């Protein structure tokens, strides 16, 4: 499966910003419809980008499907699962927009497996059911890679939930995609994977010149990146939540950290121009390179 050197992230599409509530509100307004998300994706594609991250959110899925019609197999889709509150709402059913209500409905719906989990300690049936729903939601995008959301990766690793990670991996492989992990705790995750005897071919983690969210330390993250030669690393938070200019962040990720790929969240068409132009300048001929990733 091809993994492009530089990819478009999706955080701004679901209103994630580290710069303040004003920008989050603006993103919520700007990306409320499919067309606005598609415009940024389309511009990025015009600039040679072929990798696109997506959450299991309706607008992103529809935009990806539309882009797939244009780019066909030349594009790579990386899905991040599960979008926790989205998954809860879907499990809970229609009309559960309120977070607390969704939680209650989710618990009620999963009560048999929850009780079973309480008795046996086995959460797998419950997670299995959630994954099944979420994988069906993203099916239309024909994802090439499916990564486990960072919160769940971190929680599963720190509590030694080998069976959950294995379940995720198996489910993704069943769908013909390559499994990966995202994390905010690269040090812990790598140590735990090794201890559990588990391997994932791709790990996505923060790499930026501010050291923003590089846990446990910048030095340790760089050391792991160098040592784990059988893992393809995707750098995220490359611009440190918008506090680093694209040129500086991208140069650091590839040249200092030495990640294989990066994923960059883009909030507008003009931002796509600025960011990916910087990428082109720094990467040169490598800009359109792709890694061939085999699932372990």
């Amino acid at each position, binding site marked *: 499966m091809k993994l492009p050197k530089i990819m478009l992230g999706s955080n701004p599409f679901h209103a994630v910003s*580290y*710069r*303040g*509530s004003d920008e*989050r*509100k603006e993103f919520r307004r700007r990306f409320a419809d499919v067309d606005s998300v598609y415009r940024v994706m389309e511009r990025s594609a015009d600039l040679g980008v072929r990798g696109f991250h997506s959450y299991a959110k309706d607008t992103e899925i529809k935009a990806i499907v539309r882009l797939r019609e244009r780019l066909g197999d030349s594009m790579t889709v990386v899905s991040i699962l599960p979008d926790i509150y989205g998954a809860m709402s879907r499990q809970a059913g229609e009309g559960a927009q309120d977070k*607390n209500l969704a939680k209650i409905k989710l618990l009620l719906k999963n009560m048999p497996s*929850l*009780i079973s*989990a*309480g*008795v*046996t*300690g*086995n*959460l797998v049936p419950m997670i299995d059911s959630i994954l099944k729903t979420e994988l069906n939601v993203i099916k239309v995008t024909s994802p090439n890679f499916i990564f486990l959301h960072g*919160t769940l990766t*971190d*929680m599963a690793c*720190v*509590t*030694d*939930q080998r069976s959950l990670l294995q379940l995720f991996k198996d489910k993704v492989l069943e769908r013909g995609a390559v499994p990966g992990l995202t994390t*905010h*705790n690269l*040090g*812990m995750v790598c140590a735990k994977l090794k201890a559990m005897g588990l391997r994932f071919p791709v790990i996505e983690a923060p790499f930026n010149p*501010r*050291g*923003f*969210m*590089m*846990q*446990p*330390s*910048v030095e340790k993250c760089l050391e792991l990146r160098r040592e784990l030669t059988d893992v393809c690393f995707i750098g995220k938070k490359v611009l*440190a*939540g*918008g*506090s680093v200019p694209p040129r500086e962040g991208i140069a650091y990720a590839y040249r200092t950290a030495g990640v294989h790929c990066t994923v960059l969240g883009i909030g507008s068409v003009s931002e796509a121009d600025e960011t990916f132009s910087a990428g082109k300048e720094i990467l040169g001929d490598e800009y359109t390179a792709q890694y061939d990733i085999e699932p372990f």
Partner: protein
Amino acid sequence: MQKKLRVAIVGMGEMGMVRAVIAKGLSQYELVSVIDSRGTFARLAGKQLGVSHYKSYAKAASSEEFDALIISTPYASHYELGTEAVRQGKHVFCEKPLAGDSRKAMEMHRAAVKKGALTQVGYNWRFHPTFKKAKELVEAGVMGELKYAGLKVYKSEVTRPEEKADRKNREERFGFYGALGVHGLDLWLWFGGRPASMSAQTTRVFSSALSDLISAVCRFENGVHGLADLGWSHHGFVDKDELALFLTGTSGTMTVNADRIEMYLEKECGGMPCGDSLIYASEIPYHTEFWFTHRGLSHEMEAFASSVLDGKKPSPSWYDGYLVDRLVEALEESGRNNSVISPVIEESE
């Protein structure tokens, strides 16, 4: 070999699970047991975390050896659990609000002092990079002498009439205060000092037990004054960072929220430039062994473990928890009676 804090956690709901996961991720901790009166929750959490599980604190305390207890139950049980644990010599970390009642909060604090137990309350916004940095800057005197401390906390959580289930849920959570208000009030006191007198206006828009909207003006003991504007019945505020402080000193002004610090200084000071400056949270060095869900939670737990292992008093302490509980009572009383109040504040020891 690194010394570890052996800890049990009581209350395995959402927050208890987050605490447990962080405890597993920080090498300062050894998670020994989990406790929840709902047997299924206790068993599930115990199995997932690979530790023993109990339905009651008493049973856990008599069966297992641990140095500290983390209380993550609803606030109404904090008093009973907290006092019992400190009387047994446990060090205790307790979620906010400490007791929701200043008399009980003070009893908890005094019981801990009497037994030499070290205590902390879960006002984790103090550990958030921007608020922590702002405190350092204020204490370094970059704004000169602090004169004004304003607080704004807006949420959109209660924006429709109260139903029976809502009422129970709100009461169990200490209303708006428990949702986010006490975090803001703790920060207000952290920067402003102890309250000397105040006048509040309060409105119950949809709730029946506590106010939904609170506005207050306060004079602090050190002469600083400030306005607080809080509520969870404002519409369209879905971000947590609608919690902000506005600080003015004799030579500068600062606005702080979870995302950034905006500052204007009349003169260069402490490495901060004259005129406008802006510091994003992502620019403030923040490293922890294990980060999970919210910036500040890991540092808060690291701070508790470090204090206890080093035998130092943690901060924010249960006395700080008492001060917030007392402030809430004063706000509600002032609003209810439309009066100026000089709340009686008991000394720490």
